[in-house]
């Protein structure tokens, strides 16, 4: 099994929006490579049909009536926000980025 490169791990971590330390990168070079090696076994399969199964659900999607129902209250929306300011959810400054 070939280890992933440091750059590959950094790229994947960025796609996943997960910060990684140098030490973690070394671990992921091995553990992610092991997983990808196993996943690559699907390339042993040939001769399959092109129909894709996105979900086992075979029924037509049923839409509910377009009626106004119960709505979330302001305090419910804010209940679990980690940082809030009055009735707003607070985030770091982003305009200067």
């Amino acid at each position: 099994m070939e280890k992933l490169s440091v750059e590959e791990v950094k790229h994947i971590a960025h796609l996943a929006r997960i910060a990684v330390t140098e030490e973690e990168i070394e671990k992921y070079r091995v553990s992610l490579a092991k997983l990808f090696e196993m996943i690559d076994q699907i390339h042993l399969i040939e001769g399959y049909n092109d129909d894709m199964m996105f979900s086992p659900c075979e029924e037509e999607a049923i839409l509910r009536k377009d009626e106004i129902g119960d709505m979330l209250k302001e305090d419910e929306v804010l209940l679990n926000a980690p940082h809030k300011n009055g009735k707003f959810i607070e985030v770091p400054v982003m305009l200067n980025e």
Partner: protein
Amino acid sequence: MSKYIDLSILEIHALYKEKKLTPTMLLDEVFERIEKEKDLNCFITICKEEAYSDAKRLEQEEVRGLLWGIPIAIKDNIVTKNIRTTCASKMLEHFLPIYDATVIEKIKKEGLLIVGKMNMDEFAMGSTSETSYFGPPKNPWNLSFITGGSSGGSAACVAARITPLALGSDTGGSIRQPASYTGIVGMKPTYGRVSRYGLIAFASSLDQIGPMTRTVYENALLLNVIAGHDEKDLTSSTEPVEDFTAFIGKDVQHLKIGIPSYLVSDVVSDEVRCVFENVVSLLKENGNTVELVDISYLEQAVSLYQVIAMGEASSNLARFDGIRYGYRTDNANSVDELYEKTRSEGFGEEVKRRIMVGSSLLSSSKAKIYYDKALSIRDDMRSSFLQAFEKYDLLIAPTTTTKAYSLGQGLDDPLKSFMDDVLVIPANMAGLPALNLPAGFHEQLPIGIQIIGAPFKEATMYQLASFLEEKLALDLEGGVHHDEI
């Protein structure tokens, strides 16, 4: 002296009707047992106050259905209004849902009493429940062994007879595999049979909520309550909900039963094979036909599952960004840094690994060669199963390749948690109902078998399961190490 909580649900119901027992009296026993069995670490949150308050309310009304006043434990990835729901993650350690999942609404309406939220693998990712932020639950049969996972807390709770009923969820075997390791009955219903509204999503096309119970009959009773169409879940089925207990107790004589050959290949240990062969002999002796059947692509089912489950997980878990709810890092100067550090600090090792693999598989350069291909083969696999059901009434197989093993044994191997589920994953891939039934023991640890049905054939599965349950007549109380009985 026997406790009321150890009686069957039918017996408890009769006592309720005769007014010889009250829900409060039953809860006293449950909370006493929770305290006594705290070494199992199967609860993340205990809902004592809420449960007693619900019980008092029930006591003001007439006894209703069979599950009225019965205590139940809920896997901690099913949201419960005003009761902390953590998914066994630091990310949701203090998360207080503002609504009830549809299954919770249904069980509350029926008068069941929620006594706690159960330990599990973080975000249901794992096969031993050891990835929990709150430490692993222990197997009641031997405290140094795993419960299996991811619904390990629910399994341990029922196996230790703390509650007669629990809800779990099954994405790649997470109800059936711990049920096998702890000696209880666990059903993953047909995909769409039970609403997923309020189940914190892992892999949406695979996830399904199901009952975990002491007996087959009680399992069917609970499925009766939670099944049915829900307009809040687009994938929930409009298939009518029958009485799942309807065929229980009916004779089983002329069934045609298939065994998918790969599921009894050399991946299975001798101890499990021995238990399984005993069941096959029993079925044949009673006039049923049992033969091997080939189902396509089972050899690669784990790899296919990894692509689909991790791909969907990476998308589903993108919502945990530290903004609207959940953990947020204290150490960020920009929004990008906020996302990346929040997710790095809030998720555990297994979850991060799976999100990273999934993100990579769904990236533009890889999606077609991995994800699209996996979905195509998945379609063929389902067709192969459906073809088998034209000939066979049911399929059977072992549930797990081995019995439960020691805590810590598989922690360093990122593939172990997937290989543990090699026999249970195919039913999720094909959206089929599948049930674990305790079928024997090896070295005082339980071993289960799996019954797999055609879509929406749960009632027939329960018929076969109850027949075997009666014939095997196992003593499953060994998982109870409270000593008062």
